[in-house]
């Protein structure tokens, strides 16, 4: 599999180069993507917890979640 590349545009000379990413650059991208995936999982878990909390409140009031959302909209 070919290595990912970057395009570098030198604004002074106008020279444009296509350069393979270094191991460090690939590692940085992979780390950032992994962090993004972790954050996404955490955000999803938080959203699910909030939804469950809302459903619990609705149940206490004897309302469905949809009825509660309608009330709050």
């Amino acid at each position: 599999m070919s290595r990912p590349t970057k395009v570098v545009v030198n604004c002074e000379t106008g020279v444009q180069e296509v350069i393979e990413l270094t191991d460090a650059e690939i590692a940085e991208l992979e780390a950032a993507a992994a962090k993004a995936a972790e954050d996404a999982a955490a955000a999803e878990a938080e959203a699910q917890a909030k939804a469950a909390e809302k459903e619990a409140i609705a149940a206490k009031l004897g309302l469905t979640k949809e009825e509660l959302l309608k009330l709050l909209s």
Partner: protein
Amino acid sequence: MPSPTYTLIASNTLSTSAASVTFSSIPSTYTDLVLRCSFVDAGATGVQPMGAGTYGLRITGVSGTTSQRFIRGNGSAASSSSISGLYMADINGTGSTFTSVEIYIPSYTASQNKPISSFSAAEANATTAYISAVAALYQNTSAISSFSLDLLGDSFAVGSSFFLYGLKNS
């Protein structure tokens, strides 16, 4: 004859997909920079609206603390949030419909922190499209002479284009 106040510094339209695009040796002779780009994600990640874990188009290659706030509408809901990093636009799928972005970098040579803003439209010829505005802060007092753009691990597709302009206030 008046001198031009909005000048194309450099541009690139990709003939091969690329993980990032870098503008280096940016001249310090302008007051502000404007980057206009139109891109498609060539990767497999697909829809990446800005937010926790799904970050979109970002500016890299600068050193210093970075953060941003954004507002976004998608036709059925509006949202607003903040994330660390210079994330400037949503990515809306990997099809053939380009996302267009304008990024404004005022006073890029001034010895002060740099506010950076952007406005983008991420259409996908599908149900959901995003329109977003970003207010970002790059905390570094050095002049900006180089920066890169990437899609956090995905690549820009062939045909994606990038235009860097310099603005002079006199």
